[in-house]
């Protein structure tokens, strides 16, 4: 479980000591009601298309995942060995809930689904993520996204 108190000592100790960035501002962007929002998924699970380059460095880069992707074409090259991958092997929605998001859009619970989604590899230093994240913001706006769901692994 992701409850620190239930984790083995080695993992708990590492996760407790991980340096977290501190920000002096608290940005807050408003938007329309959920039923009118166009949603994109941004994962940090090191996901990518089968024919794309795997993550082979901790540099803050990201991969593009089109909404038309099929489950058999999405694979994972996260560097960490300390999280469960068996669930993802059984059901991609456990990590990348695109089927669930499409269902919510069909039901009208959300306004729509973005044409493109993205994945980083979460082991990157947060400072390295800033420039790619700001590039990504421009792409998301072009895609008319006004709700980003960030999903860790």
């Amino acid at each position: 479980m992701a409850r620190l108190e239930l984790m083995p000592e080695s993992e708990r100790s590492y996760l407790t000591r991980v340096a977290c960035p501190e920000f002096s501002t608290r940005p807050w962007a408003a938007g329309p009601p959920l039923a009118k929002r166009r949603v994109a998924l941004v994962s940090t699970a090191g996901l990518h298309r089968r024919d794309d380059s795997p993550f082979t460095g901790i540099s803050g880069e990201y991969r593009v995942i089109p909404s038309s992707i099929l489950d058999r074409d999405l694979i994972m090259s996260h560097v960490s060995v300390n999280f469960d991958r068996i669930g993802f092997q059984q059901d991609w929605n456990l990590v990348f809930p695109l089927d669930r998001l499409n269902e919510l859009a069909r039901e009208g619970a959300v306004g729509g689904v973005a044409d493109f989604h993205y994945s980083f590899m979460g082991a990157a230093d947060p400072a390295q993520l800033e420039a790619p994240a700001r590039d990504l913001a421009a792409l998301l706006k072009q895609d008319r996204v006004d709700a980003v769901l960030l999903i860790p692994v």
Partner: protein
Amino acid sequence: MGALAHYLESEGLPTTQISLIRLHTEKIQPPRALWVPFELGRPLGAPNAPEFQTRVLMAALRLLDASAGPVIEDFDQDPPEGGRDATAWACPLPLPQSQEGDRLTEAFLAEIDQLSTWYNLALRERGRTTVGTSRMEPRGIGAFLAGFLEGDPPGNPRPEMALPWLIKLATEDLKAYYQEAVTAQPGRCFPTGAELDDWFWDQTVAGRVYTALSRLFSKSEDFETKILGKVLIVPSARAASRK
């Protein structure tokens, strides 16, 4: 994760996120976060549980309707168990028993061969596989990895990437091959992650090979190879329990 939310939000994009480590989210204070009590690697809770996944997803998305933040909300439901009873899982497949004096490579390749029927069945039934990041075949990965232990280090079959990264991708691909194969087999119950880990690390030749590779690489003079050996092959909890 929280840093990404901060950067995107400061560019004017509303974000919400799932949080697995509450401590990190409390420190970073992203605009909106749903903390979930799930295992690392399972942010939506449980595989093949669409109703539960939708509950998690909606709980995270509804935070977008909050009027002010930062908001951290706790999701207080545990994931469904998937029909598990109290019976412990045991691998239903008799793997070849390696004999004293067998060459490690031969035993390793025989084990990989024996799993191929089950892997192919899993692929057919699920219609997908997570194997493929290294773009090497399972048997090729076996020979490649064993070569380091046989005193005959192989060359780099994908020179566009550094050898330690290829070894990393290859070890994850082959482990996924084992896991996908063994979970395709008929059994009384589906194994938990811990049971599959115990099986892989304690009962397979692959587990012995990986442990030996970890020890070998951790003594390397090359920095990336040393990191690979120390923390990127054997899970930290298992490595700590063997010290």
